[in-house]
């Protein structure tokens, strides 16, 4: 998870969250595939 905080023109805060593919929480299928590879 990546996080970028900014301040809007009127002074309010805004936080952008992004989930780059290699960084994203894994899905169950992805985890299963990883386990299979390990096996």
């Amino acid at each position, binding site marked *: 998870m990546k996080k970028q905080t*900014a301040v809007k*023109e009127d002074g309010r805060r805004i936080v*952008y969250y*992004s989930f780059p593919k290699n960084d*994203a*929480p894994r*899905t*169950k299928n992805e985890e299963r595939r990883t386990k299979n590879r390990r096996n």
Partner: protein
Amino acid sequence: LSELRWHPLLQEWVITATHRQERTFFPPDDYCPLCPTREGGFPTEVPASDYEIVAFDNKFPSLQRKPPEPSVQGSDLYKVRPASGVCEVILYSPRHGGTLTDASEEEIEQLIYVWADRYQDLGALDYVDYVFIFENKGKEIGVTLTHPHGQIYAYPFIPPVVATELASCLEHKKNTGNCLLCDILAEEERDGRRVVAGNEHFTAFIPFYARYPYEVHILPKEHRVSLPEFSEAEKRSLAGMLKTVLSKYDNLWEFSLPYMMVLHQQPTDGKEHDYHFHIEFYPPYRTEKKLKYLAGSEAGAGAFINDTLAEEKAAELRETEPKT
């Protein structure tokens, strides 16, 4: 104007926020303030041209990082204080249409990571005692913007419902040595009639003491007090459980079921508490076409009347796709 006024009879703070009367009310779909700002388009709440998940300070906050001084002079009887705190909006997706139910499990999991991060960020502020994450969904609940989003209220006090639950947990611990919510979960799992769904880490059920007909609670099986305590596997599991419950809700009568969804977590006031994380849903429907209103008994006496049996409603939800 915003300030906190003390209710001496109920012993609780009332947030007075008159500027909220001006908030955006059902804008047209092509003028959504929660969509990204498109090139050449009107400026929205999100200056970026795209985003995945965003949290930002509410334009019409009930609580403010730098609140104004109260408009009236307080007294011993009528205490008043600045409405310090934070109100944030969390946008689940740049897509205007749809709801959280339409999000993939992976997207819901990402939202859980954001919830955990906001809980930590806002809870670290010295004037925040409680971080309350919630979603109001549907016009029946009073939602005025249809873009999928939730909210966070970071209160300068522990709100009354949570304070009551904390006191009950403390009393139960003193009497039995056990966590009250751990015991409730064990009782619901032992009985089984009110369980709606379960997976490795979470159980969803309509509690014995439900106040709304389709009031589902989701509890972690391990004693966890807040989201940052969850392992990656638990966060993934919670996403799966949320997806299951939300899908059941929408499949129940084949329309997108309105609800209030609230997350109850440990306070962030720096004091010792022993809570147990849980999520509660309060859908306002009691049948496909009838709403449950909070009327005289509920609003005036605080005594809820549930026209249904939790055991029957849980069985209905179990039988609703995805069957569990």
